[in-house]
């Protein structure tokens, strides 16, 4: 069935189709429409779930942890300061191996306070043991939310997952989305059956105090689960395609087969980058665009494969690890560091705090990448779209 929905509502609709049982949440722009929609579903009896309007994001995620440990399918959503307030608990949710799902309306962090899009909030949590997916359209928001439950709840995974939705570009923009039937989702996603719960019939201690004798092994096992997730994602992508017909890849590639310069992107800037690539291809330039839909676990193998012909990988970051460079750039560098045939990896920072991302920005990036290739001179990182008069 075709529906017209904004990104927040696509996530809420997916959560409803996945029959979530407990949704604790706290509103923050641009994610606010998510708890609003969920509360509407519950108020109208369309979703049989417990909705908790918590008194803070910290408590919202705490309640998710309690609910998930007690055996309920659980999700919440947040953005920016809200995600930062959850920071402490993100590690606890993954450490306890609880498959909580959380759409994140990607928004800049204070200060200065800014409600618009960049990826600093979720990227800053890349090491928290949550799977991370980045969406490009509301269709992807819906599909990835459904797949995220299936991936996260897989017995080989048991990790929480966040989905990146670019603030306003996705969260507040309506698009036509193909919504699956309830019966199909029921077939795709079986009820959540946790291995261990807070059950008085079989008492267990969750969240023990752990001395140096044991702590490392817990982290190692969680890391192993992260790595195993890579295969589970492939399996779930294949099952999703078989059932719903839509095909997904961890690294989307556009014109990369023979590309010498590949632009690497996340989220909605990918579409703009592809338009720039089309324009440049029409002029005969060998450029391509690769975009990551999965950021954790990092799809190293797939990226190396997609970038096999690249002389330059121009990594475009909508975040900045202050004092160094973009976070995705660091990941890409690490993934190629021991590879025999590595491209020149460059880094471009753009679109922070909702600054427009334009086709000409990517043309500029390609120009800069070409020059770097010719002269072997470059700056890491390079900021794109700055208003020089303000600096």
């Amino acid at each position, binding site marked *: 069935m075709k529906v017209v929905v904004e990104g927040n509502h696509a996530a809420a609709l997916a959560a409803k189709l996945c029959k979530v*049982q*407990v949704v*604790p949440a706290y509103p923050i722009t641009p994610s606010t429409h998510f708890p609003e929609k969920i509360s509407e579903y519950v108020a109208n009896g369309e979703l*049989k*779930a*417990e909705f*908790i*309007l*918590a*008194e*803070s994001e*910290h*408590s*919202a995620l*705490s*309640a*998710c*942890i*309690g*609910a*998930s*440990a*007690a*055996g*309920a399918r*659980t999700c919440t959503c947040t953005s920016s300061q809200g995600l930062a307030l959850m920071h*402490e*608990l993100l590690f*606890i949710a993954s450490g306890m191996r609880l498959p909580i799902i959380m759409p994140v309306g990607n928004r800049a962090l204070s200060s200065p306070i800014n409600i618009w899009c960049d990826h600093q909030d979720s990227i800053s949590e890349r090491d928290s043991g949550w799977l991370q997916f980045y969406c490009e359209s509301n269709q992807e928001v819906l599909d990835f939310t459904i797949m995220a439950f299936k991936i996260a709840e897989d017995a080989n995974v048991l990790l929480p997952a966040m989905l990146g939705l670019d603030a306003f570009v996705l969260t507040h923009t309506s698009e036509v989305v193909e919504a699956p039937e309830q019966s199909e989702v029921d077939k795709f996603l079986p009820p959540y059956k946790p291995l261990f*719960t*807070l*059950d*008085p019939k*079989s*008492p*267990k*201690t*969750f*969240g*023990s*105090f*752990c*001395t140096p004798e*044991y702590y490392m092994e817990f982290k190692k096992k969680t890391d192993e689960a992260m790595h195993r997730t890579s295969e589970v994602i492939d399996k779930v992508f294949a099952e999703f395609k078989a059932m719903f017909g839509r095909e997904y890849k961890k690294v989307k590639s556009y014109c990369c087969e023979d590309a010498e310069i590949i632009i690497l992107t996340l989220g909605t800037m990918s579409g703009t980058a592809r338009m720039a690539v089309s324009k440049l291809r029409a002029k005969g330039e060998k450029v391509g665009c690769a975009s990551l839909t999965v950021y954790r676990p990092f799809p190293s193998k797939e990226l190396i494969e997609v970038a096999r012909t690249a002389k330059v990988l121009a990594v475009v970051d909508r975040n900045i690890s202050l004092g160094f460079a973009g976070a995705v750039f660091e990941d890409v560098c690490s993934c190629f560091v021991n590879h025999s045939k590595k491209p020149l990896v460059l880094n471009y920072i753009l679109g922070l705090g909702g600054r427009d991302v334009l086709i000409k920005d990517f043309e500029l990036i390609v120009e800069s990448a070409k020059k770097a290739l010719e002269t072997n001179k470059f700056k890491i990182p390079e900021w794109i779209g700055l208003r020089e008069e303000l600096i």
Partner: protein
Amino acid sequence: MNEELFLPGHRACAGCGETIAVRQILSVAGENTIAVVPTGCLEVVSTSYPETAWKIPLIHVAFENAAAVASGIDCALKALGKRKGINVLAFAGDGGTFDIGLQALSGMLERGHNVKYICLDNEAYMNTGIQRSSATPYAASTTTSPLGKYSIGESRKKKPIGAICIAHDIPYVATATIAYHLDLKKKIKKALEIDGPCFMHILVPCPTGWRFPSELTIELSRLAVETGVFPLWECEGSDMSNLKITKKVAHRKPVKEYLQLQGRFAHVMRNEKLLAEIQKEVDEKCAKYGL
């Protein structure tokens, strides 16, 4: 007596009031109970991996969020159709309740979750080495309110946590201490029979933090009541006028008898003015409660 649900072998100091309180409470709550314990002494001494002292399911998440975690459990049990017959208890220290946990506690009480929140008040942050909390009594010396040339120890009075909880208009708020275990158990039983949030403020002497010999735990918890320092009461409904004293003290003992046994008040014994000030404060409180 019910089966022990808090088992021996944990690592609490000898004479720890917290663990005595937990045993008393679990003997009433029974095995169909889920415990939420925030970071603090109780969690650290009783859940050291791969061992656990708990024969009931327990979850520890962080320091400030026991009430929020318990809210999630309450809702999950409801959503799963398992709510009936299971007690959800939060056991939090005074730090995790009066200070860092107050917001989550307030949210949980206001939303009306069926959670029994039990504050085990040992009047300081003991797990991290006896730092003051807003439950630390006036003049007590702690590692962050030390006695000094210009300091008498803690300079503020204890935060009125019971009144704060009563103001949330919840069905039941009560105080208790381990020396009066029948009173404590009666109150726990009452709270468990209520479908809604309840708050129990339990005084638990801490030999390490209060600096007294470990065999005096029960004695001190009795003296706290007999001197009027910690009146035992319960309150059903939203206003302080419903407050009922559950342990009348015929002849209130001087507060000195309570203070002199504790190293944290040693300097008060050498300072008559300060002692008189503390006595006056206790007298005023008792007059207010009609003790």
